[in-house]
């Protein structure tokens, strides 16, 4: 089908323009983080000075973001995988309803969820001022991605048959869960985890409301540097974000293609 339809030159031109529009700013933000002076361009010489400044000013936001994203994944695996199993096997109307409800935090703007959390728990000072407050927001927002991906995998017909067979052979629930269900759903759990991790690392709308000066994440630090630092520092910091996120995205695509090969779609 790719052969016999002549390509329109207008579409070619459009694709080139759009590619430039999307790729150039990203490249610009990388080069300008390495230049001595942004307005003078590369002629001013290259330096790692801005990256060092970023590390000394905002280094802790990078570790905080990675730690929060990891906790978010662990929390959502614990809550989500068991929950997904129950949703996949339950036939009650209530569970369908709950699955719908779970996706609402994605449909509603992050600002609303953050406001609600602050109104409800803002007075609990220990909680409000800890990273746990940000973590809870991230978990609520990313939970549906884990639950729905894993539940879809648990709903596969051959898995239901396999589970029934092992039950008639006398395997208890715990045994079935860990030796059949979890291994079978592993690719889904893995791709859900990577999705949760990436979403958590990049989350800003919720986090900006939930953070305190002592609980800043990478995107919060980015917004702060854009507003108060030189443009070169903002660029260098943006580059740090790319360095953290890009390997994850490639890993995600790799896992997806692996799962595709193994199970087909």
């Amino acid at each position, binding site marked *: 089908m790719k052969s016999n339809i002549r390509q329109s030159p207008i579409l070619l031109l459009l694709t080139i323009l759009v590619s430039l529009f999307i790729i150039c700013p990203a490249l610009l933000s990388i080069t300008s983080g390495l230049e001595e002076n942004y307005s003078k361009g590369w002629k001013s010489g290259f330096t790692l000075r801005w990256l060092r400044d970023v590390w000394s000013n905002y280094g802790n936001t990078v570790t905080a973001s990675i730690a929060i994203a990891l906790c978010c994944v662990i929390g959502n695996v614990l809550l989500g995988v068991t929950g997904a199993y*129950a949703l996949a096997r339950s036939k009650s109307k209530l569970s369908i309803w709950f699955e719908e409800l779970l996706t609402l935090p994605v449909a509603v703007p992050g600002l609303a969820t953050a406001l609600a959390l602050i109104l409800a728990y803002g007075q609990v000072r220990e909680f409000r001022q800890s990273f746990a407050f940000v973590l809870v927001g991230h978990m609520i927002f990313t939970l549906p991605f884990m639950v729905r991906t894993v539940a879809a995998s648990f709903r596969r017909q051959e898995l239901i048959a396999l589970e029934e067979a092992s039950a008639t052979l006398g395997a208890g629930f715990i045994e079935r869960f860990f030796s059949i269900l979890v291994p079978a759903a592993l690719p889904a759990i893995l791709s859900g985890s990577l999705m949760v991790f990436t979403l958590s690392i990049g989350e800003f709308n919720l986090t900006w409301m939930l953070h305190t000066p002592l609980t800043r994440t990478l995107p919060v630090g980015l917004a702060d540097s854009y507003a108060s630092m030189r443009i070169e520092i903002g660029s260098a910091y943006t580059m740090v974000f790319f360095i953290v996120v890009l390997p994850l995205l490639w890993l995600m695509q790799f896992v997806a293609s692996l799962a595709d090969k193994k199970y087909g779609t």
Partner: protein
Amino acid sequence: MLLVCIAPVVTFFCAFWLLPIARLLALPAEKGWEMYFVVLTNSKYLMSLLNTLLLSVLVTLLTLIVGGGVGIFLARTEFLGRRLLISLLTLPLSFPGVIVGFFIILLGGRQGTIANFADDMGWGRWTFAYGFLGLFLAYLYFSLPRAISSYTAAAESMNSSLEEVARSLGASRLQVIRDVWIPELAPATLACGAIVFATAMGAFGTAFTLASKFEVLPISIYNEFTNYANFSLAASLSIALGLVTSLTLALARRWSNDPVIG
């Protein structure tokens, strides 16, 4: 056993989303019922809502047209590095909105590349980052990758024999677009359009970074809450915004098979 499995997630969800949101929904009522309609009755917030709607509609329309064209091109043309290009074009899906705002500042801000270029040419420092145009370009930037990825997928599975027949019967380019492409891509268009629109309505980070003179609803909500501690007003505005985005997405899921949205 199923109950034991579902209990932790239900508890967590109720404690940290359902109950807080119920409280948010009830909050404006303390100031009287008219508080719920403040977005329509107060001209300042109505303006902000209309700004947001206008921006989101325009961004959605242009995104669908441009994304559709690029998607069709990428789906049908075989060239070296095609996979790489597609993955580069969809990369911005995982950027926080603040980064997209910063990109526009790099291009069209006071020290931006375009401002410097225009200055060198003797046209004066041309800055567009902080007004409607900057916001529009930024929203286009984070919307296009989604449209490109859904249209590429949809166009790859499009039946090309229909188009060949149409062409051999003498259909013009415009007729092919109108009678073949648009109907074939209609499901992708509706689903993707709804998602792009809802995302644009609720986007906060980008407008926040650009500190735009063109005020959108998420920024109004943020200002009411943080700068004026006007909680019930902020709650009322976020209910209005949440209604628009969740209704749009509820429509979208009829046409989409995205595992989360659909």
